[in-house]
């Protein structure tokens, strides 16, 4: 936009955008990397650590994130209240039940740089457990980012024609009993 005046060009270059990420059926770690890159401003060619060039990120459907493997039962989130005997350990499933936003929030927090800017960047991260957004946040959104993981289709979502078109590996004999 070469027709901009100097101040308008400066305003345009350093403008803060709002991104939307849908976390339905996505691994929270992949969501968190995308968030942390945009919160720091590393997706911009004008990035500098001191110039506060991070953007806002809105994560929706954080209640429907999907851990791979057995992480819902095996991943442990630990904390300490500071008092003796206050060491608490909860599994990911328990934490998610108590607070559906916590897993995404903790994942992003761990991926941001460990300096004083981290808290400001976390304030620019907005997580919502479901689809509903307040109107003022919805009005600010500029881009929706594509989901990192391709959601596999359930068998019930395939059409009859697609199932029939799938090549058969072997034909069972007449008296074969399917389990």
């Amino acid at each position, binding site marked *: *936009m*070469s027709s901009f005046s100097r101040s308008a*060009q400066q305003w*345009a*270059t350093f*403008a803060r*955008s709002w991104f*939307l990420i*849908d976390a339905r059926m996505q691994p929270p770690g992949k969501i968190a990397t995308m968030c942390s890159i945009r919160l720091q401003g590393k997706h*911009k*060619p*004008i990035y500098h650590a001191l110039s506060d060039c991070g953007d806002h990120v809105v994560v*929706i459907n954080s209640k429907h994130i999907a851990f791979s493997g057995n992480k819902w039962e095996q991943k442990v989130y630990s904390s300490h209240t500071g008092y003796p005997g206050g060491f608490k350990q909860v599994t990911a499933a328990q934490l998610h039940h108590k607070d559906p936003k916590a897993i995404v929030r903790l994942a992003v927090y761990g991926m941001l740089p460990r300096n004083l800017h981290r808290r400001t960047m976390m304030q620019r991260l907005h997580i919502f457990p479901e*689809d*509903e*957004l307040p109107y003022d946040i*919805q009005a600010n*959104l*500029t*881009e*929706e980012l594509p989901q990192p993981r391709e959601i596999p289709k359930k068998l019930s979502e395939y059409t009859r024609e697609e199932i029939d078109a799938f090549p058969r590996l072997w034909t069972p004999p007449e008296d074969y009993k399917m389990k």
Partner: protein
Amino acid sequence: MTSRGTPSRFLRSVLQNGVGRYVCQLKRISIVFSKKAQSSLGARDFIEEGVVDYANKNPGTVVYVSPQPCRVPKIVAEYLNGNVREETITSKTSQQISELLTKLTNQSGLEIIRIRKPFHTDSPSIQGLWHPFTNRPPSIGPLRPQKPDSQ
């Protein structure tokens, strides 16, 4: 003092001097010296030998020579942007005074304070500066989440 407590400026040229023709920024030079004192010896020698050549070489600069009873001889240089610089020439030789004069002639009149950056450009970009929508592919359809249209 710290660089925050003292004034500072950005690197610039006066109206892009030199891109077209070069205009000498020195407007007026006044040599104030004494006719008898020891400290103005070099000044008097310079006025004997060098000042006429200097004035002929710099036709855009007005040279004033003012002998007055003064203790410390000085050169007062005034520039086109209004800045005034005074340099004392006590016990300087004629050669040193002419070197000082060439230095003052070659200066633009901008203040001699800390320059914040050693570079400056009036055209920071040929292809256009980046803004968040360069290289951003247009989004397909309106942004989610959306209210389902009521049937």
